[in-house]
């Protein structure tokens, strides 16, 4: 692997795609992209493109999944077969099942599920194009879609991945940096309440690097969080002014 490993930090200190270590990729967000869903959002982090749809609160079926004191939150993270350069089997993989779980737990931390006992809130996250950071883009999209659906929640959640490439801690890593970097740390941050709701780490970081990475991730997530709020605000401002 080391022989074919490309250089991830250029001589001028910039990354492969010309970003500085603390730069995000260009981010685009849009809500209300699907008509049939109660809420939906499309989020792009550079080449990563994710769509999220929220249905509910609705009657939870089958009845066995109903919870007597709160709504059940069901999250399905899925990568479209055409999202990667090589065809991906549409069947859910181990990885997708795990990511569905961690995203669900991140959202459960902010959604007031106790308001709808016995109901279900279903979140579908579909990765249309994968270029690193799909789970964090998915988390951002899901959070926007939940807000769009009018589901009561404590705060919005912004997702961003921090990584270590060629010994440098960098923000919002892409596919190449994920594949050949030393560490990948996705982070979900509810910036309004200041809580980290998702944190995973793949690779090795020293305690100092870890602290630096968390701090960098939080600052990046705050920028994404501000853009999320802006996206929501703009949507209805357009209607108000029409």
């Amino acid at each position, binding site marked *: 692997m080391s022989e074919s490993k490309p250089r991830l930090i250029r001589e001028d200190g910039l990354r492969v795609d010309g970003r500085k270590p603390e730069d995000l990729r260009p981010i685009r967000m849009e809500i209300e992209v699907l008509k049939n869903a*109660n*809420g939906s959002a499309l989020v792009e982090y550079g080449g990563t493109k994710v769509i999220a749809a929220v249905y*509910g*609160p*609705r*009657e939870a079926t089958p009845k066995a999944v109903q919870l*007597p*004191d709160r*709504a059940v939150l069901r999250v399905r993270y899925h990568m479209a077969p055409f999202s990667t350069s090589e065809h991906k089997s549409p069947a859910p993989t181990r990885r997708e099942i795990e990511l569905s779980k961690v995203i669900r737990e991140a959202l459960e931390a*902010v959604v*007031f599920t106790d*308001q*709808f*006992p*016995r*109901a*279900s809130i279903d979140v579908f996250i579909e990765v249309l194009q994968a270029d690193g950071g799909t789970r964090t883009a998915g988390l951002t999209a899901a959070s926007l879609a939940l*807000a*769009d*659906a*009018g*589901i*009561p*929640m*404590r*705060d*919005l959640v912004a997702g961003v991945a921090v990584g270590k490439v060629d010994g440098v801690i960098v923000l919002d890593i892409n596919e190449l940096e994920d594949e050949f970097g030393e560490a990948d740390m996705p982070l979900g941050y*509810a910036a*309004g*309440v200041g809580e980290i709701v998702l944190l995973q780490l793949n690779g090795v970081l020293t305690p100092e690097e870890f602290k630096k990475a968390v701090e960098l991730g939080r600052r990046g997530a705050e920028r994404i969080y501000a853009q999320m*709020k802006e996206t*929501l*605000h703009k949507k*209805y*401002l357009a*209607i*108000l002014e*029409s």
Partner: protein
Amino acid sequence: MKLKLYVADRQIVRPGDTLAVIEEDGNQGFKRIPEKHIYLVDNNICSDVFGVASVSENDISVIPFNSVYYPRKEDVVIGIIEGIGVTSWEVDIRSPYKAYLNASDAIENFNPLYHDLKSYLDIGEMVLAKIVAFDRTRDPLLTIKGKGLGKIIEGIIIEVKPSRIPRIIGKKGSMFNLLTSKTNCEMTVAQNGFVWAKCPDEYRGEVLTQAIKLIDEKPHVRGLTEEIKQFLEKKLGG
């Protein structure tokens, strides 16, 4: 309770936005007020939903842009018959919970041996009903006993988002009065996002539908009542 406001009336707010701070000694801790769509944390009043703030003297709440209908006791709703049991109907009231209408409520001296529920209310038919009981542990129970309640056999049904209902009624019924007086339609507003109208002719029904759809699309515009008034006058004349 003294409030220091951060938002103006009719301002767009998002989940987590701080609306106001309570300027008082003593920490309120964490508290939620679901019907107002706000929560309190350390004397900060925050929104829990994406909508517009409604600020009045010493009171603050958020009206969501989108929401599902959450049943409440005493609400008048329009339901669609979805299933027929031996002693009750299953009714879809566009909420996360299925509603039930007991046969004994609709049929006098009901006996499942003699009465066939299908001949009274069939699947797909609509009823105007009132919720008599609902809580967190029980599905809503409906009644059609009462003035004006019962099976809907004439008129038009207009579907809107449930969160638009307060706007269709308006402050002290202003919008409702405007719509009914200008179009001469008889109108019933159901809390779960349905409007039932009986109009003198088809054209007036169409105009009313358009007016209501207009409210559905942009409910938070200032001076909407005036806009609707102009729209109705243009279509129907003076």
